[in-house]
């Protein structure tokens, strides 16, 4: 989420879920909200019932398209061109919020200059969407306030994901939508506690509350709090860790609750990397495909079996409570890691409860400083919450931005094509997608019934591509990329545009990420799982 941190000073959703229902216009970009975030999908549909305009931006015809006023079915990876094209329309028609830009934004002139590049011909050529339609969408967004933009993996999972996010932030800023009720730019976080994991510094460059490890003051603060010297060098990212394990620089890996054999882009590489480790510990609730490669497997308690907190996509810190005792000998993750630390003779891990840990978090994290378990008993709290009498913050950036200057930064952006393009050998583009009934990896697969509802994995192909390839609905096909291949059944549907096919990534029978690319976004280091060139033939 590096994009928003640069432009607004915080990478999180600016507004709350409940506000979405009262927006006058909503852009849903790169998100199949009804599948990945169903409750937010309800809010979008509620807004539409109340007369809101809905614009869907997606290479695939996602279910929300049925409710939309305008569907911009762009070519995969052309988001920057589309969004900057929309900004151009807004500025040229004088629909931008001059007062807001004057008072609250910086870099407008440079940004305006960069719009020149986005001529109607250029933008419609790259996006595959007629300029008229883009103009109409841009005006609709600018003229119906408050307007909210929701986006998800379809925007971030690209080698230029950070640019995509900044292009979205540009739109929110020039229309004055950031910092107002039912407006904002809203990244929808995937798993239940992605927000909380980031907040806690399960990231290579920050401690809790996004305090930089490279910042001497922050480091000294944590050295004092933890009573040990700390490294000031940011660590390796997820994908880099697997690369370093592959080359032997990383020799020991502690992996919690993940299944990279299935979910890592370029999964064959990651699997080999894990096999090369000297020592590999996996802590999980199931003996999944990855755990089977480990030297030691530690049984973790599920979220229904422990106390604690999770933070949802709208920065809401909420209490998780133990419903039943952990099965067998399973233990809460914090207990296991603390026990190892104690066994190694470390100080500062004598935790007896989740609440004790939370109190330590609040003492080192300004944005959590005012939150206590006692307060959470009364109800959830949205951070930042700096003091015990602070009510929490439903809407970010109402007065000023968290950037050094306090202003929202408009970005001049250049369109860059995706790393991987189609060619004669790999003529189709594959994108990955989610299915409502499965959630990233295997947890949902152990709940009987969800598997049946999801109807198994298919590769979705447009009828005209299918005809050219001689493929019928239900045929088993072989899918090849530059990195790997797999077999899967074909589903022929107009929801896919010509030249683009899609696959989910939940099933071990069909490890989609064997195919996908690990070309990285230079800032956010997000692998490009949304664009990958492939070829298909009947198996």
């Amino acid at each position, binding site marked *: *989420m590096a994009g928003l941190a640069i432009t607004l000073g915080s990478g999180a959703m600016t507004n*709350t879920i409940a506000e979405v229902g009262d927006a006058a216009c909503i852009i849903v970009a790169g998100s199949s909200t009804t599948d*990945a*975030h*169903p*409750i*937010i999908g309800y809010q*979008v*549909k509620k807004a539409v019932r109340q007369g809101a305009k809905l614009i869907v931006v997606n290479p695939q015809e996602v279910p929300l398209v049925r409710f939309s006023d305008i569907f911009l079915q762009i070519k995969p990876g052309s988001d920057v061109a589309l969004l900057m094209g929309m900004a151009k329309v807004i500025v040229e028609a004088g629909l931008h919020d001059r007062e807001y830009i004057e008072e609250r934004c910086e870099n407008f002139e440079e940004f305006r200059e960069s719009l020149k590049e986005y001529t109607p011909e250029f933008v419609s050529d790259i996006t595959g969407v007629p300029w008229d339609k883009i103009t109409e969408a841009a005006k609709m967004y600018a003229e119906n306030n408050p307007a909210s933009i929701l986006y998800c993996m379809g925007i*971030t999972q690209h080698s230029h994901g950070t640019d995509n996010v900044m292009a979205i932030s540009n739109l929110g800023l020039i229309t004055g939508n950031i910092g107002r009720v039912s407006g904002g730019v809203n990244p929808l*976080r995937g*798993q*239940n506690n*992605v927000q909380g*994991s980031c907040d806690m510094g*399960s*990231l*290579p*460059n920050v*401690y*809790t509350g996004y305090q930089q490890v490279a910042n001497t003051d922050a480091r000294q603060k944590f050295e004092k709090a*933890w009573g040990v010297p700390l490294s000031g060098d940011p660590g*390796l990212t*997820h994908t880099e*860790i697997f690369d370093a394990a592959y080359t032997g620089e*990383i020799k*020991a890996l*502690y992996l*919690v609750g993940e299944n990279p054999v299935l979910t890592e882009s370029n999964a064959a590489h990651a699997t080999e990397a894990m096999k090369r480790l*000297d*020592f590999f510990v996996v802590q999980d609730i199931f003996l999944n495909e990855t755990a089977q490669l480990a*030297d*030691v*497997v530690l*049984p*973790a308690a599920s979220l229904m079996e422990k106390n*604690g907190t999770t*933070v*949802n996509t709208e920065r809401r*810190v909420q209490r998780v409570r133990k419903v039943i005792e952990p099965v067998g*000998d399973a233990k809460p993750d*914090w207990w296991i*890691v603390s026990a*190892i630390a104690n*066994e190694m003779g*470390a100080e500062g*891990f004598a935790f007896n409860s989740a609440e004790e*840990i*939370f109190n330590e*978090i609040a003492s080192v994290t300004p944005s959590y400083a005012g939150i206590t378990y006692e307060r959470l008993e009364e109800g959830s709290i949205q951070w930042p919450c700096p003091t015990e009498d602070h009510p929490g913050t439903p809407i970010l950036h109402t007065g000023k931005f968290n950037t050094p200057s306090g202003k929202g930064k408009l970005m001049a952006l250049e369109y860059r094509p995706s790393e991987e393009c189609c060619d004669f050998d790999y003529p189709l583009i594959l994108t990955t997608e989610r299915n409502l*009934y499965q*959630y990233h990896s295997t*947890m*949902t697969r152990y*709940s*009987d019934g*969800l598997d049946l*509802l999801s109807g198994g994995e298919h590769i979705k192909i447009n009828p005209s591509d299918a005809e050219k390839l001689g493929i019928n609905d239900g045929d088993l096909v072989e899918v090849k990329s530059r990195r790997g291949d797999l077999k899967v059944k074909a589903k022929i549907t107009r929801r896919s545009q010509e030249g683009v096919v899609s696959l989910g990534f939940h099933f071990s029978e069909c490890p989609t990420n064997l195919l996908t690319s690990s070309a990285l976004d230079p800032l956010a280091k*997000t*692998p490009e799982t949304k664009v990958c060139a492939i070829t298909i033939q009947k198996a």
Partner: protein
Amino acid sequence: MSELVTLTIDNREVKAAPGTSVLRAALDNGIYVPHLCDHKDLTSVGVCRVCLVEIEGRRPTVSCMTPVEEGMVVHTASEDLDKTRKINLELLVLNHDYDCQNCAQNSKCQLQDLTRYIGIDEERINAMRDPDLSWDLDQSNPYYLRDMNRCVRCGICVRTCEEVQGDECIDFAFRGIETTISVLGDKEILDSTCTTCGECVVRCPVGALVPRNAIEPTYEVETVCPFCGCGCGILVGARGDKIVSSRGIPDYPSSGGSLCVKGRYGLGFVNSPERLTTPLIRKDGELVEASWEEALSLVAEKLGQYKGDQFATIASAKCTVEDNYVIQKFTRAVMGTNNIDHCARL
């Protein structure tokens, strides 16, 4: 907040917000008025017509469709009302498959409440019953059953799907006595666009839509859904050492009481027989069961040899805030490296 309206219902003075229906005003003040097709979360439609009341100066009125007015005088019971309600009720249950003993809704059923209040004449109904009219039980969905022989055609499910979940997966089909609720093309529910959110199932007032294999929990705990970033509030029910139910926490700030299929029906993984229940250690190439003491001392000893940048941690966005804090603290303070990340980027 605008001023409350004062009215009289059955000689009791009650107050209600403007725009409240007479039915809700009565129910909110502990006065039972028979009703079936009205639901507090949905628009009122006034189709079952059993909530008729008398308002002084007017003809008998459907109370769910009548907003309260200052000084209104309402009577919820009279002989005339009883008679009309009875006829209206009988029309609803003509072909109802009364088998309360074997119905999952038994004792929670609003039709039972109604029948108790209004009473029905079984002989008369039996005489009017069409013995050939029966619907197949739709068992296609793994999480809920649809038994249209128990449907009272209140339309709550149709309005729920439209107004809560925002879809239109189901609708009324056929006419007159054959009216039923069906999915497009009269297919099984599994072949429809239904996403199994279960919102209609929790609102169906009778035994027509019921969860499969429902087990009553002995206690419920307020917590948060473990699946996606929406973080819906859930009330999880357990019996013994098993999770048996889940429902939305009413008026929860992020979710307003709604859930999707995963939060409502997807918690089965917790009690899956495939859960890891003990540490495993690789010995001679095989993962074998071990005690915590053995596993902890092995991990501690081994990790002691890999401190610094040759070590890395992948944390998890499925774990709690507290778990993540301890994991990153361990990585930084004990292992001496910032090599920690999780799958936020994916």
